[in-house]
């Protein structure tokens, strides 16, 4: 532990006795709330005067003895494996003694091992008790060792080894009043009063206000992650009003680029990555909406509690809201192992690892608590029991990773259009049906009186009528129904899930062939199901009538690896949902393949290479499945009325004839069309065209309603049990989903049964986390905001407010701001405004050796700490300066990796970005875990697999290499030069001046212009731009 101002190391982190007080920052008083409390308590014990033996009542025990036991003994002597098997946390166990027998003999300290060990300073081992403390124990035993409350909560008090529930961060928000300050310019913003008071106490004074150019550059990078443009700078410089800076802040906060900058911070914390990680590392192609959701939420200044509720339970709170579901991308932002062992225990163990990761991210992100550390045992440092870990884990076990198809709500305008189209379609269809019906009736009437010839149908090799059973009506093949396949009303009914029918192997070879089926579909939006298929018994080779696989709503000749498949370019199916459609595919000897729909040619015939010969006894016919194995998109949902297989290629007339005989009342389209007069035909064709046009428009509107989304998939969570030592092989008691007792605010008892639904669990969790009386909720987020504005948090460990975390440098300010945050409805923008308009923020960053002597890390804020641009800011700033930034907001984003699969694993190879999409802000980069960008990496862009609440800012030669040599830098330097020539003309001096203005936000002086001009004349403008992009002034914000 360091003293905050001198950096001097203290020997013991929480030594509260004999600690030298730092004369500058009063280290002791900064130490912790807990320590202050502890000292007060002990003072009370020590100075209340000796208690007399016969006065030690149970109340006295609770007041005086129990705290001592809790603080000095229970770290070792409690829990599941107490040292020496001596558990001092309850009366029963304390009196029972341990390995060495009974330890406390009431009335007789001399016969009590407990006293003996204390008296001889053997216990506590590292730091013996004071004389006063010893006296208390002795008196207590002499007085009969009366016990008070049966169970002493080992988490009640902080000790020098761990935090208790009295730990500073767990206490309710206080209401500190801003101190008074008289420093000119530091009186209006309460932040300044708090900061100034600490500075004064340390003998420090703040720095002067930075100049306006520095301020606008600082503010712009801080809030937008982008440099200010020369126009913005000019506007600010020429605004001489008193509130010029405040006006600037308002302008900047209103920019949509604000969301992009601050979303990046959030994505760091939630370790947002766009692939699964682990062995397969599959891409998550639809995870990006979460990133955009964060950007939008910040831009809209969504209240933070709402922001968090949505991320924990948006899918439950608003199940029909696309955005709300998107928000749950938080729960599935991390890595996920999809390589599953066949062994159950191994899978369970992997699942527990992922739950621990999720508990960790939820606890650290919103509460600053490392609850994940209590999976195998009670938390070693914070008041979180192992049981509580499993209770919290139970609130999240229903969360599963997955890609969902989510309904996007249509705009009112589009909804209306859909209604209009439907009514229009209905009218046109009626008109079409009238024409068809008239022609059909005529044909059927003629058939009855024998004037219309009934074409003779061809004889099939095998026919299935599905009348009552699965037998074929020509041959004698046995067929077997699988899954839910069944016969109903003369049809084979297929559910699209597991239903299919397969025959026994065929006894003869099959070369030329024709497949035909009369099919009615459950939905025209299904994709990939097979109606009838000829396949080898292993499913590896097949020819099939397939619907909608490669092109929506179209029929095709499916085949293994698409080797015999090409588009027929037929029309989109519109009827097959309403009535059975006859579809036939003819496989000719020359390899050409022809499709027919309702007896007429479907699109065009094509050549596919060689005809495949299916060998006798090695193939079968299947229905409802494109090819084996069962599953995937291979299943057809619908009904097959009839199907036939021919061992020859039918002619067009034969197909037409076959199409006509399914039903004596069936009239093929060809027959019907032939009957129409030319005028009728023209009218009919117009109607068909109109139907297709309207249908397409409607599909486009309603199809866009479904968007794929990588988000939380809610699952049955099952029952959670405590696992001894975290081992799945050692389950113990069942737990109910609940919160952590250490967190004050909402009740930790969620009133849920162990088998409660995922929805109930996460709703309760979200309510508990965001409870207005939860002090951690506001403090942790407020501290994050402070950190990003000032370079370090008041608590320097932003995701850990527990024992191992840092102490707040300004505890009063932290609570005052947290109160302001909460009472302002948890809106971020007013807090940003408060922080960046403070005099503290507006200080110059000039070094001050004397101040650095006292407070090298600038924790007390005697200046504004300069900051190197972050990786994304560097790339974005280069894009802006060179005039190349594509400033579009939202959307899918860009990829600077080539994705390929190799042996089942996914790889992401860096490629140079090109095109306008690649010139977008870096936050829109597709970010696979196994495909990091070396340029960004080297500038400390974090590994998306790990939460990064605070980035490092390293300086390495690899950074220099990247920025000097990367291809993108050269291209952009060229663009920069082009821009200069465009905007500043051909004079070198003018060009140089513009470079300084654009890249540094300031004017170049005469000497700089001369130096630069000489270089430009010798080596060109683009080379000069490359140097500027590498310079410190470009890369640092003062």
């Amino acid at each position, binding site marked *: 532990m360091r003293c905050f101002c001198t950096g001097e190391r203290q020997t013991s982190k929480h030594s509260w006795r004999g600690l030298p007080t730092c004369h500058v920052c009063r280290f002791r008083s900064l130490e912790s709330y807990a320590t202050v409390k502890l000292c007060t308590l002990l003072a009370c014990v020590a100075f209340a005067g000796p208690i007399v033996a016969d006065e030690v009542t149970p109340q006295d025990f609770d007041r005086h003895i129990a705290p001592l036991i809790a603080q000095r003994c229970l770290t070792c002597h409690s829990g599941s494996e107490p040292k020496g098997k001596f558990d001092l946390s309850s009366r029963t166990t304390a009196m029972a003694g341990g390995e060495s027998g009974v330890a406390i003999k009431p009335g007789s300290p001399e016969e009590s091992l407990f006293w003996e060990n204390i008296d001889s300073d053997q216990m506590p081992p590292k730091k013996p008790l004071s004389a006063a403390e010893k006296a208390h124990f002795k008196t207590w035993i002499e007085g009969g060792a009366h016990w008070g409350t049966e169970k002493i909560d080992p988490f009640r008090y902080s000790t020098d080894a761990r935090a208790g529930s009295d730990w500073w961060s767990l206490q309710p928000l206080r209401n500190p009043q801003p101190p008074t300050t008289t420093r000119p310019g530091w009186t209006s913003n309460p932040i300044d009063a708090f900061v100034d008071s600490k500075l004064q106490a340390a003998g420090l004074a703040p720095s002067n206000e930075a100049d306006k150019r520095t301020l606008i550059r600082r503010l712009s990078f801080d809030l937008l992650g982008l440099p200010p443009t020369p126009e913005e700078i000019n506007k600010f410089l020429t605004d001489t009003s008193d509130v010029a800076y405040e006006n600037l802040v308002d302008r900047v906060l209103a920019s949509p680029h604000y969301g992009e900058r601050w979303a990046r911070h959030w994505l760091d914390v939630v370790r947002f990555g766009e692939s699964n990680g682990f*062995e397969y590392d599959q891409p998550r192609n639809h995870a990006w909406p979460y990133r955009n959701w964060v950007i939008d939420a910040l831009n809209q200044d969504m209240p933070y509690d709402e922001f968090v509720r949505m991320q924990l339970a948006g899918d439950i709170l608003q199940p029909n809201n696309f955005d709300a579901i998107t928000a749950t991308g938080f729960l599935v932002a991390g890595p996920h192992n999809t390589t599953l062992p066949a062994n159950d225990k191994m899978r369970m163990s992997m699942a527990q690892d992922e739950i621990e990761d999720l508990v960790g991210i939820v606890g650290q992100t919103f509460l600053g608590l490392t609850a994940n550390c209590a999976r195998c045992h009670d938390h070693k440092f914070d008041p979180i029991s192992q049981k509580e870990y499993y209770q919290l884990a139970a609130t999240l076990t229903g969360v599963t990773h997955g890609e969902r198809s989510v309904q996007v709500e249509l705009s009112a305008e589009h909804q209306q259009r859909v209604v209009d189209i439907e009514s229009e379609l209905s009218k046109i269809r009626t008109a079409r049906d009238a024409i068809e019906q008239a022609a059909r009736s005529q044909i059927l009437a003629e058939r009855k009186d024998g004037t219309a010839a009934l074409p003779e149908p061809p004889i099939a090799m095998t026919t299935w009528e599905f009348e009552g059973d699965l037998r074929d009506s020509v041959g004698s093949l046995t067929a077997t129904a699988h899954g839910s396949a069944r016969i109903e009303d003369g049809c084979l009914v297929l559910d699209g899930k597991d239903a299919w029918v397969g025959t026994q192997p065929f006894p003869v070879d099959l070369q030329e062939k024709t497949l035909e089926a009369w099919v009615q579909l459950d939905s025209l939006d299904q994709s990939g199901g097979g109606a009838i298929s000829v396949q080898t018994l292993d499913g590896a080779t097949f020819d099939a009538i397939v619907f909608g696989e490669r092109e929506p709503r179209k029929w095709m000749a499916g085949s293994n690896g698409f080797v015999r498949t090409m588009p027929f370019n037929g029309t989109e199916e519109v009827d097959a949902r309403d009535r059975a459609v006859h579809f036939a595919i003819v496989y000719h000897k020359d390899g050409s393949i022809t499709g027919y729909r309702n007896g007429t040619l479907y699109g065009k015939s094509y050549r596919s290479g060689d005809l495949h010969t299916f060998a006798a006894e090695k193939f079968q016919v299947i229905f409802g499945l494109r090819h084996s194995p069962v599953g995937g998109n291979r299943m057809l949902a619908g009904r097959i009325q009839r199907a036939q297989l021919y061992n020859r290629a039918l002619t067009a007339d034969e197909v037409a004839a076959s199409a006509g005989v399914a039903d004596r009342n069936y009239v093929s389209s060809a027959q019907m069309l032939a009957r129409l007069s030319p005028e009728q035909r023209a009218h009919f064709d117009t109607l068909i065209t109109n139907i297709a046009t309207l249908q397409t428009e409607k599909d486009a509107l309603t199809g866009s309603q479904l968007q794929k989304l990588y988000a939380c998939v809610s699952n049955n969570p099952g029952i959670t049990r405590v696992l001894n030592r975290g081992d799945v092989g050692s389950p113990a008691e069942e737990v109910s989903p609940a919160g952590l007792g250490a967190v004050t605010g909402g009740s930790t008892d969620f009133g849920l049964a162990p088998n409660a639904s995922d929805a109930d669990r996460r709703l309760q969790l979200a309510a508990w986390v965001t409870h207005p009386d939860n002090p951690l909720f506001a403090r942790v987020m407020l501290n994050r905001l402070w950190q990003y504005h000032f370079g370090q948090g008041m608590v320097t460990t932003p995701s850990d407010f527990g024992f191992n975390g840092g102490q707040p440098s300004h505890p009063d300010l932290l609570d005052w701001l947290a109160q302001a945050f909460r009472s302002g409805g948890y809106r971020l923008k007013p807090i940003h405004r408060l922080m960046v308009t403070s005099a503290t923020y507006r200080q110059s960053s000039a070094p001050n050796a004397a101040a650095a002597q006292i407070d090298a890390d600038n924790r007390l804020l005697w200046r504004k700490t*300069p900051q190197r641009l972050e990786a994304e800011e560097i790339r974005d700033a280069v894009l802006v300066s060179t005039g190349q930034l594509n400033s579009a907001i939202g959307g899918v984003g860009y990829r600077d990796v080539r994705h390929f699969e190799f042996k089942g694993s996914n790889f992401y190879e860096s490629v140079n970005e090109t095109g306008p999409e690649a010139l977008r802000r870096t936050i829109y980069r597709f970010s696979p875990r196994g495909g990091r960008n070396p340029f960004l990496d080297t500038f400390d862009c974090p590994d998306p697999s790990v939460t990064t609440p605070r980035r490092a800012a390293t300086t390495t030669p690899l950074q220099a290499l990247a920025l000097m040599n990367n291809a993108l830098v050269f291209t952009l330097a060229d663009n920069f030069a082009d821009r200069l020539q465009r905007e500043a003309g051909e004079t070198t001096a003018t060009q140089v001046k513009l470079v300084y203005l654009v890249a540094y936000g300031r004017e170049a002086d005469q000497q700089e212009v001369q130096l630069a001009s000489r270089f430009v004349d010798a080596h060109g403008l683009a080379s000069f731009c490359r140097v500027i992009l590498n310079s410190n002034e470009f890369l640092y914000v003062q």
Partner: protein
Amino acid sequence: MASLLMSHRNSRADAVPGEARGFPHHDPKAKRVIHLCLCGGVSHIDSFDYKPELAAFHGKSLQAEERPATFFNQIGLIRKNDWEFKQRGESGLWVSDLFPHLAEVADELTVIRSMVAESANHTPATFEENSGFRLNGFPVMGSWISYGLGCETDELPSYVVLPDARGLPAGGTINWSNGFLPAQHQGVAFQTKGPAIHDLFPARELSDTHERASRDLLTRINQSHLETVGSEDALRARMRSYELAAKMQLAVPMVTELNQETAATRAMYGLDDEATADFGSRCLLTRRLLEKGVRFVQLFSGGSFGSPRINWDGHEDVKENHTREAARLDQPVAALLRDLRQRGMLDDTLVLCTTEFGRTPFTQSALDQIGAGRDHNMYGFSIWMAGAGLKHGLAYGATDEIGWKAVEKPVHWYDYHATVLHLLGIDHERLTYYHNGIQRRLTNVHGEVLHDILT
């Protein structure tokens, strides 16, 4: 906490010596490390763990009270080793004919035959092997050592990765992640095509004069900026990083120029033979990198999973698979050990050869069959170490009579990591970095140094 503050103060341009102050903790035996990472799971019972009883059990079913937990859950009959074992060298260390060249340098090896892993799933097991944790995002050993000890040169990265020419291990860069440690401790994977390091040279051809003038101008502009804003360590460090980058541009092409080696050396490493050329070149490059002061070089044997196999994952046929894989590295690795020995480098260099888990003594097949392939075995397997501070020609620990489970002196990865750090002069409990509530360690909260294998 101290290290966090220090890293944030970002004043260091280079990593010489360790960023985390106070290292080494004790006199180091080893100064640098070579890690041969064999992906897929090498069969210990076919290589370093001689189990004479296996022959007797061949074709019998496993008589155990529990059903073994394996990845594919197919427990076939027991199969004897496919390679013959012999005692080698003066030490009499048992090494099978799978590695005939390594067998010749058996006296250099320290074999641990009682390794235990906590996962039988490749990637979590590989993460554990390298970072001590089963999840993504933890720093790997190379990063920890770079963080602790830095580099002996400022011209090359401290942690270099040389992937298999056939492809990256599954997960790609995840395998050499710095995790939460500062970025300069990430493994720098040398590229197989073009310059070894990304962006080593300008993407465009520039004359020396031009490049020198650019650097000079940069220095002058930075200098004048420094005078304006005042003396900041960070700004100075950045200026220095450009000087170091220039040195690296000279050093990297030199070190990767294997033609500077004699024909005899190249032949010894197997550069002339197609089967050994890839691993041989990388072994030779490794020696050259170490000579220049690189701290940690990691070589991968094997790429990602799936068929046909390009790693040691012999599910289908161990004999076919291991024969092919061993042929790629056996001679080069033996040559590397000999070369290091003859140059006196093995005295302060640690060579590690590990695999994420072993393979089962029973085959991956139907209950009543002796298959050709073996499944993953996390309960017992072998790794070896060589070089500084170790007792050579030693076999430590033992598995049961058929090589299924470690029964004598079981060693977990954290014990192995603790031992490696110990040899480097580092107390594994004191190489820490604060991250989210914990002073994180390579060894988590475990780890016992294996003093029995140390000199």
